[in-house]
């Protein structure tokens, strides 16, 4: 049977498994063949009861059924026998039987059908493994919905009483939505059976508000009993139960006023009877999702944090609008920096930072609860109390009596979640006292006061540490810490000593617990003046004799406040000698000097200061000084605001040293101030606001010995040296042709403003108003400077000067502070007469000698001169012009025109005929003569030629034919000729008019000073053409005779004109001066030319 059962009636599970595992075609084919054979066998077996099946739903009873054999009808009886130990048989008229669960192992089952036609028997092997466990269909006891949270609640009974204990049950629940029953959720829920019936609950939160659509719920179960080895199968699905919401007539939007986490997804729906047109969240439109009827939904993903009033979701319906508000925020952050402390040990203040803002306000805001673990007390946070830190929250917790340790837990909660923070504190160590109030100061004596204050709190169990700030005017503040026992009544007082009498103090106080946590804030300041005490010292005293030496003036300084110990009312001055004691009347306080008429005996002067409490110890000083013969005056210069004085320690000085100083320009008695230093001192820095730079002070160092003072040193000094403010007043004592003697005076001390270090004397050539010494220090080479460092020197002789020359003298004094102003003067040295005389006599003598020699020579050579200068004029007709030159210089291989003697000028006879040259009346020999400078200022030095004689000439400036190339102007000099000559023309013009046809007579020379090569070439051409020609080639006149005039062209090439012959000829050919001719420049020789370069002068 077992085999049969396995073959004939494999369970669906087995079939399914087999089908799932068969993949091989051969296997399928063999299976098919096998099934066919089995079917064939079964058909044979249908003659007997067959297909026995057993199931169970509670593991206690098995429900077995079989199929009747063919031919069996109503009235057929079956005998169902179980072959076990009891071998029980059941007779029954149906094809199923419920039998108690059999034990493990195989059981032989025999079913015999008893019918009229006979009986047939089938045998089966039954084992628990062949039994199927199919639980009963579960039933949902209750399905409810929480619409506000969109939650479905399912309740059912597990009927656990029919199963053994500890069986596991798997419940499968399906959620269907909308009328079309779309599956939206299929979940499994595990429970275990307890052996008794139990009701189970299961909840599910819908993403779609439950109001939006109908929701259906069904379930089935699967019992997984470990004691059962047979097949376990799911129960059937229970009947579904549904939840639906009855809509109002007006459209509504769900969920309403929901609080969601930022970033979450949420679905909104609108339940409406009318058509919904659009939907938007904030300003963003969303696509509609259609639900049952006109209901629509929208899905919002990753929602952002809302404003305070929430995010509006609006559905637009025809003629209406409906909406809802959603609040997107965050769960509360963990409270940060939770701290608990107390001000008064009565109340604990816990403060914390709420951390990240939740974005939720109003009723959705975070609520806080402070729970104390030991006492079990708690308080709730009701309102935000903003502390000094701004965003901090705080709660006040009343302290529990006799409890010092507190375990606080702060719970934070809002609709999106909760958080907490804990802190364990010993509250006596967390005392932050209130600010002390009612702070008062009371006198005890002149050096002690009592401070009292009020500090609210119950500090009886702890000690307080208080800090007192004591501040004197113009002094560093002092902090004193005191520890006092805490009290219950909050009033405290302490004594503060070691104060100064008659001193204004400013007190304030703050406190903390002895186990320091935080200082309280400072109390208000309280100013207090301590009471007076007798002055601790006598005044600092000095004395000076009056200028007439009859009276002794006693000076004293007002006592400093720390020594006066009160307001000084008056001073008592007395003087005592061996014989008597003289006391003056009381001198009221503002007066700090007294004058006593004393003789020259030695007196001891004593000064006592008195305040309202009493008199100070007397200050004593002897009236007479101890003489000191060895006294020198020294110099010193200060540094900055003071001056440092040093000295060698004198063991004889037993009292102290006194440095007295005064302004040196003040009249006696000289006292500006004094200062006492201990006897072991060797230096002192004297500083005073009265010191001024540039002012000379006298310092006197006194040593004290037996109350008598001896002047040890006398020092003059400056705090800072400045430059003199005046120049030394100087005069010229003596002047000669080459020297000046200057004398100056001292500068007054007040104007010197420093120690005189010397003088600087500047001098240079220069005249008043035209020469000023500028930039004395710039090292100008024409300025001579003399530095006079010997300040005793008061005169200076300046030598090696030029005679009759104006000199500019400047004198200035200098100190280490700088140069003083300058004083200047102009002095003209005297003329050098000897030199002038020599300068006159020597030229005169030379001129006389030359004249004599010339006269003698002329006399002895008179014949020759006549022959030379007055020769017979030759007849031009006899002159062969073309042979002129040749005849003149015949026999000479070179031109000798520059040589006077060998070249005898030809005699020229002037004819009266004008046939060829009508306007020429006489032969003209033009020879350039020395240029006679008309103005030395306009001529270059090298053009200046001193000549002994300047014939009348006409100077005409003509443009240079070569233009700019010549780099200057050409000058043509025409010797003045008689009017019968043709008008003077420029050579260029002549060349231009008739360069080739210029026949007839031409002036022999019209030479430009700056002739160019082209000019020369042109002249060569002219030579070839016709006419009279110069006797010599001018180009060859470059040789310069000592007397010949010369000119220099722009290129400094020397071009000489003329010759002695020409000069001589000119001298005699020139007719008397014509009225129309240009005036001569008049260059006659004068005696003054001997000294000057200017001929016209």
């Amino acid at each position, binding site marked *: 049977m077992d085999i049969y059962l396995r073959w004939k009636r494999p369970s669906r599970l087995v079939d399914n498994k087999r089908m799932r595992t068969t993949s091989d075609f051969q296997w399928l084919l063999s299976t098919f063949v096998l099934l066919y054979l089995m079917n064939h066998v079964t058909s044979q077996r249908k003659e007997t009861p067959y297909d026995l099946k057993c199931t169970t739903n509670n593991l206690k009873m098995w429900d077995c059924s079989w199929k009747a054999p063919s031919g069996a009808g109503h009235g057929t009886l079956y005998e169902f026998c179980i072959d076990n130990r009891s071998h029980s048989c059941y007779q029954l008229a149906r094809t199923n039987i419920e039998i108690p669960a059999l034990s493990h192992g195989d059981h032989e089952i025999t079913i015999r059908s008893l019918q009229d036609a006979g009986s047939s028997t089938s045998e089966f092997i039954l084992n628990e493994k062949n039994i199927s466990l199919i639980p009963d269909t579960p039933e949902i006891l209750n399905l409810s919905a929480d619409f506000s949270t969109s939650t479905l609640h399912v309740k059912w009974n597990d009927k656990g009483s029919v199963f053994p204990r500890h069986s596991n049950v798997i419940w499968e629940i399906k959620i269907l939505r909308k009328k079309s029953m779309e599956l939206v959720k299929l979940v499994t829920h595990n429970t275990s059976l307890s052996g008794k019936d139990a009701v189970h609950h299961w909840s599910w939160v819908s993403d779609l508000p439950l109001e939006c659509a109908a929701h259906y719920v069904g379930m089935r179960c699967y019992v997984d009993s470990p004691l059962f080895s047979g097949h376990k199968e799911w129960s059937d699905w229970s009947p579904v139960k549904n939840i639906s919401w009855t809509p109002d007539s007006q459209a509504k939007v769900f969920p309403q006023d929901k609080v969601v986490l930022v970033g979450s997804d949420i679905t909104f729906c609108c339940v409406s009877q009318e058509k919904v047109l659009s939907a938007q969240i*904030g300003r963003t439109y969303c696509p509609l999702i259609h639900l049952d009827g006109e209901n629509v939904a929208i899905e919002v993903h990753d929602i952002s944090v809302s404003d305070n009033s929430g*995010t509006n979701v609006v559905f637009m319906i025809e003629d209406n609008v409906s909406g809802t508000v959603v609040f997107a925020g965050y769960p509360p952050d963990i409270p940060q920096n939770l701290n608990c402390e107390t001000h008064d040990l009565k109340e604990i203040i816990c403060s914390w930072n709420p951390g990240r803002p939740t974005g939720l306000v109003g009723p959705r805001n975070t609520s806080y609860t402070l729970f104390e673990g030991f006492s079990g007390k708690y308080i709730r946070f009701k309102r935000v109390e903003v502390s000094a830190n701004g965003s901090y929250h705080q709660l006040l917790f009343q302290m529990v009596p006799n409890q010092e340790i507190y375990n606080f837990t702060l719970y934070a909660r809002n609709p999106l979640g909760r958080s907490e923070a804990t802190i364990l504190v010993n509250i006596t160590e967390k005392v932050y006292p209130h600010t002390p109030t009612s702070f008062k100061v009371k006198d005890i004596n002149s050096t002690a006061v009592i401070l009292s204050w009020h500090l609210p709190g119950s500090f009886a169990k702890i000690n307080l540490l208080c800090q007192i700030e004591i501040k004197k005017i113009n002094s560093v503040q002092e902090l004193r810490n005191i520890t006092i026992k805490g009290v219950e009544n909050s009033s405290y007082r302490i004594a503060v000593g070691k104060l100064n009498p008659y001193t204004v103090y400013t007190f304030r106080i703050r406190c903390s617990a002895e186990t320091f946590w935080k200082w309280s804030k400072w109390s208000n300041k309280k100013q207090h003046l301590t009471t007076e005490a007798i002055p601790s010292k006598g005044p600092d005293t000095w004395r000076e004799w009056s200028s007439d030496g009859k009276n002794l003036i006693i000076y004293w300084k007002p006592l400093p406040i720390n020594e006066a110990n009160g307001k000084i009312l008056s001073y008592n001055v007395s003087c005592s000698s061996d014989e008597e004691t003289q006391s003056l009347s009381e001198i009221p306080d503002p007066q700090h000097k007294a004058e006593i008429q004393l003789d020259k005996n030695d007196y001891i002067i004593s000064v006592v200061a008195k305040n309202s409490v009493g008199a100070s110890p007397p200050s004593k000083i002897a009236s007479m000084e101890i003489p000191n013969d060895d006294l020198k005056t020294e110099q010193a210069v200060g540094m900055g605001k003071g001056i440092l004085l040093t000295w060698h320690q004198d063991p004889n000085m037993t009292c102290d040293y006194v440095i007295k100083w005064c302004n040196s320009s003040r009249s006696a008695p000289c006292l500006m101030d004094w200062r006492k230093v201990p006897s072991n001192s060797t230096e002192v820095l004297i500083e005073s606001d009265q010191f001024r730079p540039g002012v000379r002070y006298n310092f006197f160092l006194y040593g004290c010995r037996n109350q008598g003072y001896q002047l040890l040193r006398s020092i003059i000094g400056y705090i800072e040296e400045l430059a003199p403010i005046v120049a030394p007043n100087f005069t010229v004592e003596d002047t000669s042709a080459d020297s000046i003697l200057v004398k100056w005076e001292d500068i007054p001390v007040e104007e010197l403003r420093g120690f005189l270090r010397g003088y600087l004397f500047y001098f240079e050539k220069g005249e008043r108003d035209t020469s000023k010494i500028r930039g004395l220090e710039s090292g100008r080479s024409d300025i001579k400077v003399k530095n006079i460092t010997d300040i005793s020197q008061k005169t200076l002789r300046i030598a090696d000067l030029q005679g009759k020359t104006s000199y500019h003298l400047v004198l200035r004094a200098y100190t280490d502070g700088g140069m003083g102003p300058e004083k200047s003067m102009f002095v003209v040295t005297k003329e050098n007469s000897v030199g002038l005389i020599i300068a006159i006599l020597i030229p005169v003598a030379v001129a006389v000698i030359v004249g004599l020699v010339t006269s003698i020579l002329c006399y002895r050579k008179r014949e020759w001169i006549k022959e030379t200068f007055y020769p017979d004029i030759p007849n031009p007709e006899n002159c062969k012009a073309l042979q002129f030159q040749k005849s003149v210089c015949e026999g000479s291989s070179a031109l000798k025109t520059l040589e006077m003697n060998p070249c005898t000028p030809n005699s020229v006879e002037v004819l009266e005929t004008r046939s060829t040259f009508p306007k020429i009346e006489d032969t003209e020999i033009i020879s350039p003569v020395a240029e006679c400078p008309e103005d030395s200022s306009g001529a270059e030095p090298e053009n200046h030629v001193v000549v002994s004689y300047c014939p009348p000439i006409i100077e005409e400036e003509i443009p240079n034919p070569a233009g700019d190339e010549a780099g200057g102007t050409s000058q043509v000099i025409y010797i003045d000729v008689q009017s019968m000559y043709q008008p003077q023309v420029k050579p260029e013009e002549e060349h231009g008019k008739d360069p080739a046809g210029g026949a007839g007579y031409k002036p022999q020379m019209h030479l430009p000073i700056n002739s160019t090569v082209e000019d020369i070439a042109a002249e060569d051409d002219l030579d070839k053409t016709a006419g009279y020609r110069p006797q010599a080639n001018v180009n060859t006149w470059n040789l310069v005779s000592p007397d010949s005039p010369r000119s220099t062209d722009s290129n400094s090439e020397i071009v000489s004109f003329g010759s002695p012959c020409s000069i001589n000829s000119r001298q005699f050919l020139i007719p008397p001066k014509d009225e129309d001719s240009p005036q001569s420049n008049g260059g006659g020789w004068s005696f003054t030319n001997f000294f000057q370069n200017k001929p016209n002068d």
Partner: protein
Amino acid sequence: MKVLAAGVVPLLLVLHWKHGAGSPLPITPVNATCATRHPCHSNLMSQIRNQLAQLNSSANALFILYYTAQGEPFPNNLDKLCGPNVTDFPPFHANGTEKAKLVELYRVIAYLGASLGNITRDQKLLNPNALSLHSKLNTTADVMRGLLSNVLCRLCSKYHVAHVDVTYGPDTSGKDVFQKKKLGCQLLGKYKQVIAVVAQAF
């Protein structure tokens, strides 16, 4: 005036300003005694006009402040979300007699005062940080209380009317936030519209 506000107005508030719609009350019969605790000021009508002008001048600013604080899409959908669709708003006829206008004004101001109280309460929870809105609402409510007192004083002193039937708008305490926002906006829109007419009528 302060005394009136301190005496009469709280009494009126106690009597009238309970949430929910009230049933209409009859006008005081003519022969009923009408006495005010304090004598009415001589220039009551002038004060009423001034108060109406004050309300009229600030109504639009309050309206803007309100719908701005409600967030989008209120400012951009004023016609649908803030339209003056207040069905049970007391009527006002500008062409009536002074007595009739005063009676109607009393009803209007009583209605508005109660609604403004609801709005103020809702907004303090919904927009706790919108201090300027709170201030404007409180100021408007204060002026309305004074106006109500003056109107009643005028009615009582001149027309011997001691009591006027009043109705109130819906209580919003149980409504969802969106409904609170919308009803408040509609009410303030209606208030802005009505107060202009009323101020013009006096």
